[in-house]
């Protein structure tokens, strides 16, 4: 019997998800023995034409990381969907939009001007911008088009499973690959990580007060961060209570607050709303204006609560109202 074929691809991403696969280290050797990797641009020389030549459903599974912003990314996602029995959205960007999704707060023209005209070091007297089609020395060259907003993978193609995290924890990748190879898969649409909040696996759990009350929100550089106590109790906006576990509380082990890259548990539809209401309920004050003033200490609510999930949120962001945006 031939080995199952698998693929990896990246859309609007940073490459950290590929590194996470490489971080399987020696654990990747039995995987490589058990499967044929037929597409993985970071490491292998197979091209788009090789994928186009495959029959439909040729791959047992394709792991796709990165958000969707360009026509090329959309075409590749559709192509890989057609060629794969299973699609796994791999990492925060394909799962929820990720940090590049913060761009949905801005409209395209602001960004265009900022990058190509109004940038301190750009010298561009002819006001040139990259073009979808251009001619140089009589040769026509093309670039992909850009959508009005960043989308998640499942806003683009049908997705079977999700591996959360920025980047996904190695242990979860191993579990997911094993489950797929053994055919022991949960229901379609499952997020392949424990369905409990991060606080439940945090080593500082014991120091989290039952009734939290924060009278001043702190920024991490303003204080000497105690390495033992609950970060929320120290006034830092740690999002562990709203965030799915499975990362080993890595940021907290680094003595910094959780920023929510694993996304919500299955019981929450809007991550940021959950995180915001969780934090807001701990803010204390005698009068309403005391509370308002304390909340003002949080200088960037969108970036704090929707750092990885703006495109999948109910808010979606300003960019989707921009003309040409896709639904």
């Amino acid at each position, binding site marked *: 019997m031939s080995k199952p074929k698998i693929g990896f691809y990246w859309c609007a991403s940073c490459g950290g998800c590929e590194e996470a696969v490489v971080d399987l280290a020696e654990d990747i050797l039995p995987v490589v023995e058990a499967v044929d990797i037929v597409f993985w641009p970071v490491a292998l020389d197979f091209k788009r034409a090789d994928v186009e030549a495959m029959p439909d459903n040729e791959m047992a599974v394709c792991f796709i990381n990165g958000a969707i912003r360009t026509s090329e*990314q959309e075409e590749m996602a559709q192509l890989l969907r057609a060629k794969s029995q299973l699609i796994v959205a791999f990492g925060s960007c394909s799962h929820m939009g990720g940090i590049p999704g913060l761009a949905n707060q801005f409209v395209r023209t602001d960004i265009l001007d900022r990058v190509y005209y109004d940038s301190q070091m750009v010298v561009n007297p002819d006001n040139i911008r990259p073009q979808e089609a251009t001619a140089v020395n009589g040769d026509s060259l093309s670039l992909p088009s850009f959508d009005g907003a960043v989308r998640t993978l499942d806003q683009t193609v049908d997705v079977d499973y999700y591996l959360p995290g920025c980047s996904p924890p190695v242990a979860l990748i191993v579990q997911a690959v094993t489950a797929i190879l053994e055919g022991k898969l949960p229901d379609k649409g499952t997020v392949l990580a424990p369905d409990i909040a991060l606080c439940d696996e945090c080593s500082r759990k014991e120091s989290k007060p039952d009734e939290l009350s924060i009278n001043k929100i702190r920024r991490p550089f303003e204080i000497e961060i105690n390495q033992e106590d609950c970060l929320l109790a120290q006034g830092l906006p740690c999002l562990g209570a709203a965030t799915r576990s499975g990362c080993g509380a890595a940021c907290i082990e680094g003595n910094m607050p959780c920023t929510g890259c694993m996304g919500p548990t299955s019981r929450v539809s809007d991550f940021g709303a959950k995180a915001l209401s969780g934090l807001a309920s701990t803010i204390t004050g005698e009068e309403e204006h005391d509370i308002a003033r304390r909340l003002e200490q949080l200088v960037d609510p969108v970036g704090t609560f929707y750092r990885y999930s703006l495109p999948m949120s109910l808010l979606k962001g300003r960019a989707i109202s921009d003309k040409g945006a896709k639904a």
Partner: protein
Amino acid sequence: MKQRIVIDPITRLEGHGKIDIILDETGNVDHAYFQVPELRGFEKFTEGRPAEDMPQITSRICGVCPTAHHMASSKALDALYHVDPPVAAKKIRELVNSAFFIEDHALHFFYLGGPDFVVGPTAPKAARNILGVLDKVGIETGKQVIALRKELRELITAIAGKVIHPVFGLPGGISKPLNEDIIEQARTGADHAVEFGRFCLQVFNDVVLQNEDYVNLITSPAYTTNTFYMGLVDQDNKVNFYDGQIRVVDPEGQEYVKFPANEFPDRIAEHVEPWSFVKFCYLKDVGWNGFEEGRESGIYSVAPLARLNAADGMATPEAQSAYEQYFSVLGGKPVHFTLANHWARLIELLYAAERLQELANDPDIAGSNVHTIPDATPDEGIGIVEAPRGTLFHHYKTDERGVITRANLIVATQNNAARIAMSVDQAAKAMIKDGKVDDGILNLVEMAFRAYDPCHGCASHSMPGQTPLILRIYDPEHQLIDEIRREP
């Protein structure tokens, strides 16, 4: 009739790219274009964010070199808040950066660029990769590479919280001191890394330098590009990855200029082309004169070859002797052979390992004071480090609350973008003759960019939203007969 060959996607690099090769009527190359077809938008969407989030947000520019962005960003925050981190914090940051250079350079040699030599430039495409390397060098050697990378990445995790993406950088220092276990882990890792650095240079010697065909390939005009070179140097003009001044040498190897980080915006400018999303950097004083070589063209290069050219030597003993051998074998300074980046990268790997060993054994890293709490009002800050792929520049302006009003980022690969475009064009012209093209020949073209270890994750950090469309219609003599525009 003109023919077109498209390599899509280009492979064994970080991020997206394609090469569009136009052949003339005789089947020879008119021009080859190296394009970056993707963008994201960090300069714009970081506006409104608290500055202290920047080390974590900008690390998402690149998950292969997140540590480099994290470092440049943390240094920019020090400058922004006018705060000087305690000595322990500075040395721990440099220690992490050194460990990162080793595992990252190893990634390139064994996974990305090295397969072209270890397996062969025109080997079957299914074998030209890490799996082919494991077949060649043996699984036991392969396991050593995997184990060393894992050991160093676990060290970074222990200190920085996560390796993809670190969380420990703060204005004024880092988030936690090192305990004895971590220091011991660093010392052991450093010893292994130095051995590994020697081993890598030995592999390079055995596989590449002892193979006359490979040496001829490296020194061939197909892969030779004459430009300026840039890199960070210490007070003795030795290569430094974490701090120092920026030194630029001209195509003859003479110092052209040396300047501190905060002069970077005055010295460097960015040029825009309509056929790629990447902006092309050049030396402002020399000027942009098209994709041309030589000292009349402001195009410069960064990354390993450039750093060795721009410095007078290495600050550690074994790397220094490797440096001397390098220039002696390759015919003196400067070296213009693009493929010699591979060798330079391994010399740097050994330097990073020796430097890691020095820092791991430096009593200062055990200091408990690793964070100076800033008390000045933030305004503007610049941070520069050397990333594995070259000089990396972060520049922030904020309001008095420390909220970003302006961010400007010049990433390593952007500094190299113009030279990479020229190198790919040169290689295509040299390798494709009379219409003869196959997978091996196209890989020889790809090797021209791969030597730089470009990172298009980094290069595509900016984002223009939707592009305007201009459709130009030409007659067979290339005369423009119509133009249709659609503005966004």
